[in-house]
């Protein structure tokens, strides 16, 4: 048998010639043309619908006068502050809750597994109806006020009448929608940590907190950083929460850069100013994007 195989292989070579070189080694002629043809639809979509609008947007916002106007405007600085608070507080709450819940869902109970399945409902629910419900739940008098009155005998705060409670409502709604997603990612990362490491730490006398600090934190750090960066970038670009949940209330103070940019475009008919509002966030977005791309590339695209 071991002698027959090379003989058979030699006969095949004699009849058909040597097999084509592996794609891993070389790509020539018609195969190269096929490969290019396979990439063309993707490249076309990216160039026509992503990079061209990006360059067009930068060109639209290239007039320095737009930035002079923006920087002199109170509503712009108000939206910058709100965006920073929304992102700064929101990212920390999102990632802390996701880390906590990923530990919770590691517990081996049938009902916790069932909860994990249910936990994806907010993520799968379309964003607009969910955030609309949040808005109506929190308006005064709304469902939360009714509930507060029935259970505690006191009125709830008028959430959209005060800046901090309106901002808190936006962060709560965003957290409600996205924490299940981050939890699943971190849960997968924690499940990939070999059980032996926990057992070795336990034998060495480490308690639960010490195992978390010395085993989970170092091994989950990279994944946690990538998730934090992604969460920051997406919150920075979030339009829906401020538009639907608080609708900018009170008096447009909870508008973020995204809603202000769209407001300039449609309410005030100043598209260039709208793009400039967006572009003004690039000094923050570019370093974040660069770090993110590097991290994702280094990890061969795996989160």
């Amino acid at each position: 048998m071991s002698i027959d195989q090379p003989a058979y292989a030699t006969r095949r070579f004699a009849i058909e010639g040597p097999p084509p070189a592996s794609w891993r080694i070389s790509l020539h002629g018609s195969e190269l043309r096929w490969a290019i043809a396979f990439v063309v639809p993707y490249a076309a979509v990216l160039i026509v619908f992503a990079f061209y609008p990006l360059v067009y947007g930068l060109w639209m916002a290239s007039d320095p006068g737009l930035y002079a106007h923006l920087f002199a405007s109170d509503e712009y600085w108000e939206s910058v502050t709100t965006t920073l608070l929304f992102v700064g507080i929101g990212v920390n709450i999102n990632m802390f809750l996701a880390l906590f819940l990923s530990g919770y869902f590691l517990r081996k109970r049938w009902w916790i597994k069932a909860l994990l399945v249910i936990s994806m409902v907010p993520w799968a629910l379309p964003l607009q109806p969910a955030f609309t419900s949040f808005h109506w739940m929190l308006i005064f008098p709304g469902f939360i006020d009714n509930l507060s009155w029935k259970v505690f005998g006191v009125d709830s705060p008028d959430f959209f009448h005060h800046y901090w409670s309106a901002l808190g409502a936006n962060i709560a709604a965003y957290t409600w929608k996205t924490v299940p997603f981050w939890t699943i990612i971190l849960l997968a990362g924690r499940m990939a940590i070999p059980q032996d490491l926990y057992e070795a730490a336990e034998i060495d006398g480490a308690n639960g907190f010490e195992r978390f600090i010395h085993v989970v934190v170092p091994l989950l750090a990279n994944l946690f950083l990538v998730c934090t960066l992604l969460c920051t970038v997406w919150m920075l670009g979030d339009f829906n929460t401020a538009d639907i949940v608080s609708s900018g209330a009170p008096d447009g103070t909870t508008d973020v850069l995204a809603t202000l940019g769209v407001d300039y475009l449609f309410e005030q008919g100043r598209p260039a100013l709208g793009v400039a509002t967006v572009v003004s966030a690039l000094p923050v977005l570019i370093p974040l994007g660069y770090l993110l791309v590097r991290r994702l590339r280094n990890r061969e695209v795996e989160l």
Partner: protein
Amino acid sequence: MSIANMSRAAPRRRRFRWDRLVGELGLLAVGALLLIWWFLPIYNMFLIALDPDGRPEFSGYIWPPHPTLMAFEAVLFKGYWYLEDFWHQLGNSFYIGIATMLLTVFIGSLASFALSRMRLHRSWAISTSALVVYAIPQYFLVVPYYRLMHSYGLMDSLWSVIFADVTFAVPYALLILIWYSRLIPVELDDAARIDGASPLQVYWRIYMPLMAPALAAVGTYALLVAWNEYLYQFLLLSSHSNKTVAITIAEFFENDDSPWNFMVAAAIVYSLPPIAVFYALRRYMAAGLTRGGVKA
């Protein structure tokens, strides 16, 4: 074991059980809080939809005293002028969702095949460009996109929204498909080529069947992106015949006189397809989510 030893061991066991009981109660309490947190907005939607007037919050109820399915009937049988075109609009939403899903799977699978299986030269430039688009928030492109759709002649066309959704779904699809294709031995491609298969045949007969789970994940993801997306639909679609359910819900929302129970009933019906698809394909989705990260 002596009686003395047993008496020493007994309190230790009892203390251990108390610890466990407290721990279990803690887990149950967290579970109960999570359930309340997740379902509060959903409960609120049903509270409004089941109320005959649709405004239970002003009457102080936390459950309507006379719940009725009237609002759902109005949605199903076009019982209100706002909802006359609900099924047509749902059809538009499906059209956008399914076209986005098919195009994302088609474009992503072709590109991932060329990059990961055929090892096209300088493929790093293309995969990096995917990462760059992945890191751009959707709203960043909305104003130039709006202007460009005018010049492309695609304003008020469902395809303008489809292209926007595909643009933001394809980079994720590419990352997932490239990752998943590394799990499939390249020797299968080589064997097919020795048998005389062209690249297109290898793609269609070897690559696509073996990639089915990953394709299901990215297809579901693209459908969810299209269903969740609201800003581009709101800005790019204006005519009556091209409206989607998301736009109608937004119009309801902006009109204070709207019967909110009808609107929320429409929103609940609109929410069912993505939830059904997600739970039908959640095994694939879970694998996809944990490998690439998704725009939530």
